[in-house]
């Protein structure tokens, strides 16, 4: 199976037209958005000539405002981990709507196995299980979360691949089931007070470390392994992939399992970061993750998209969120701007695709 038929509907691959990769456009858009906020920082009278990215108050050793650089990526890292999985699902021409509630359900399960017995000398008021589940090694909640994610993904994948349920419907059902599980788990009560070692896997810049490490790993897997080539092949032309001997059904189950395990891992890290698990967590995460992939140039009809694109798409979200807080505009404007950018990204991309063809 050649890599060359990605999303071009079987048209032959013309190397000369690939000289300006799609990812460069997103990078360019990212820079333009940063420049806009930089200008607003200078132009808006109430901003007192603050810089968006540079250290205008001389607080850091470098020329950059390191605190802002960090939060830009930190605040998208957890949804970014989900986006790495949904990117793979969308490349196979599927969709996964269950990831947001899966984050909440996994957070509840993992946190219940990560609790500490004594909180500032008081017995843990939020204890879910008995003493046996207190102060367990950090690996146990993490593995429990990943196993739960793998199960959910296997169910998603099985219904989609073997029972031919459309991915939208199968994962919409799982969306509700997982939110139900999250609410049922502790009757709506938050689960709090984890061990220090559990907190440490989500503390500080750890979410960014996980996000970028996983991004690098999956970038290579998608680009250079059989798993990656099969994923693209199925999305480009499922029938052709089957004809050429790919076990399409089994591969799809695998892709959904990986996506759900990434979402489950995001849930574990989120609960460690917040040091609590709550049934309402992860609201709209599935849609933001899909939006990151879309801004990153993925095609919802499958066969085209990349991890680098999705990471850049996540960065666009991070820059916008920090930028709007920087210029002191509230959440309603952020949503309008992000919505506009998602639509603009697809319009530009389609225009580009048409010109290429």
């Amino acid at each position: 199976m050649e890599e060359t038929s990605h999303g071009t509907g079987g048209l032959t691959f013309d190397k000369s037209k690939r000289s300006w990769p799609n990812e460069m456009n997103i990078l360019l858009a990212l820079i333009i958005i940063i420049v806009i906020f930089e200008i607003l920082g200078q132009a808006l009278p109430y901003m007192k000539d603050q810089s968006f990215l540079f250290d205008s108050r001389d607080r850091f050793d470098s020329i950059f405002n390191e605190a802002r650089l960090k939060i830009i990526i930190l605040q998208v890292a957890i949804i970014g981990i989900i986006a790495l999985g949904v990117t793979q699902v969308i490349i196979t021409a599927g969709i996964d709507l269950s990831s947001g509630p899966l984050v909440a359900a996994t957070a509840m399960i993992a946190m219940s196995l990560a609790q500490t017995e004594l909180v500032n000398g008081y017995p843990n008021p939020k204890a879910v299980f008995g003493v046996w589940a207190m102060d367990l090694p950090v690996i146990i909640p993490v593995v429990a979360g990943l196993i739960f994610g793998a199960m959910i993904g296997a169910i998603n994948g099985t219904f989609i691949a073997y029972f031919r349920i459309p991915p939208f419907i199968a994962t919409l059902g799982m969306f509700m089931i997982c939110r139900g599980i999250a609410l049922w788990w502790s009757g709506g009560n938050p689960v709090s007070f984890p061990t220090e070692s559990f907190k440490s896997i989500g503390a500080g810049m750890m979410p960014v470390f996980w996000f970028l490490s996983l991004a690098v790993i999956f970038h290579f897997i998608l680009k250079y392994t059989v798993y990656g080539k099969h994923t693209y092949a199925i999305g480009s032309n499922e029938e052709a992939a089957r004809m050429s001997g790919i076990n399409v059904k089994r591969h799809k189950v695998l892709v959904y399992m990986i996506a759900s395990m990434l979402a489950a891992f995001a849930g574990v890290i989120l609960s460690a970061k917040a040091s609590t698990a709550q049934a309402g967590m992860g609201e709209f995460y599935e849609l933001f993750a899909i939006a990151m992939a879309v801004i990153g140039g993925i095609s919802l009809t499958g066969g085209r998209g990349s991890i680098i694109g999705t990471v850049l798409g996540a960065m666009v979200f991070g820059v916008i969120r920090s930028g709007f807080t920087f210029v002191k505009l509230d959440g309603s404007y952020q949503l309008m701007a992000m919505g506009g950018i998602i639509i603009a990204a697809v319009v530009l991309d389609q225009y580009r695709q048409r010109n290429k063809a």
Partner: protein
Amino acid sequence: MKKTLLATSLVVLTGTTAFSETIGATFSRFDDNWLTVLRNGMVEYAGTIDGLSYQQEDATDDLAKQIDQVKNFVASGVDAIIVNIVDTSAGAAVSAAAGDTPLVYVNREPDNVNELPATQAFVASNEIESGTLSAFEICKNLRADGKAGGATGYLMNGQLSNQAAVQRSKDVHDVIGMDMCNFMTIIDEQTANWSRDEAQDLMTNWMSSGEPFDFVLANNDEMAIGAIQAMKAAGMDMADVQVGGVDASQDALLAMAVGDYDVTVFQDSVGQGTGSIDTALRLIAGEKVDKKVYIPFVLVTPANMGDFMDKN
């Protein structure tokens, strides 16, 4: 007065043992922390009353769904309905949906509270108190810290579509508008959607500007805790910042116990829960009830936090 109260409660008690009542309740959302405490308390209390069958449903913040749930309760012949209304400006529609079936609003005050029919009543705390108590205490603490010459800070809003969030933020602005507290300036206010993890990110974003600040006020404890976690992660000394919220959740009280959290406000879930079920039972029995029952909020500071440790 006491005798009549005793008599009525006896009537209620005998009434409940003789018949079997059904009460259906609908809550704006099941995943809200404080409402969960309220809900669980109500299930527990209902279990202690002989012959009472009590069921509750989740309106998932959807008013249309909640009105349908009320209609379904009526259709299935419940004896009374308890509503934690999704949208306080839609009282007339919810009241109409109940028809002649007794209905008690709990926790949130519907806009038609003064025009409720004889079969309906309202049990809650007055939301204006909560934000005011919290912000005013912070104002006093800042004065005590010698910052009366000028103090700046941030305000974290709950969900922008939520009445309690809008009211609590308005309370903060009202307090700051008073002569005694007008030395306080809000640098910026943003929503963190009631959530701890969003509050962490929002606070970190604010701190990335490097602007000095003296206080953080949040519409609930979860966001205040998120802000505290972010400030501690950035190496700030929590003794230098006044943090105020609302709820007096256990997580919040433990943060207060170690000196990170300064002010919160207790909303009496047990009082509201048992009060609403009792009122519903009295309406079923055909008694006259108070149309409006206000359960007071209580200010919680390190001085009295011990009293609230096992309450919410």
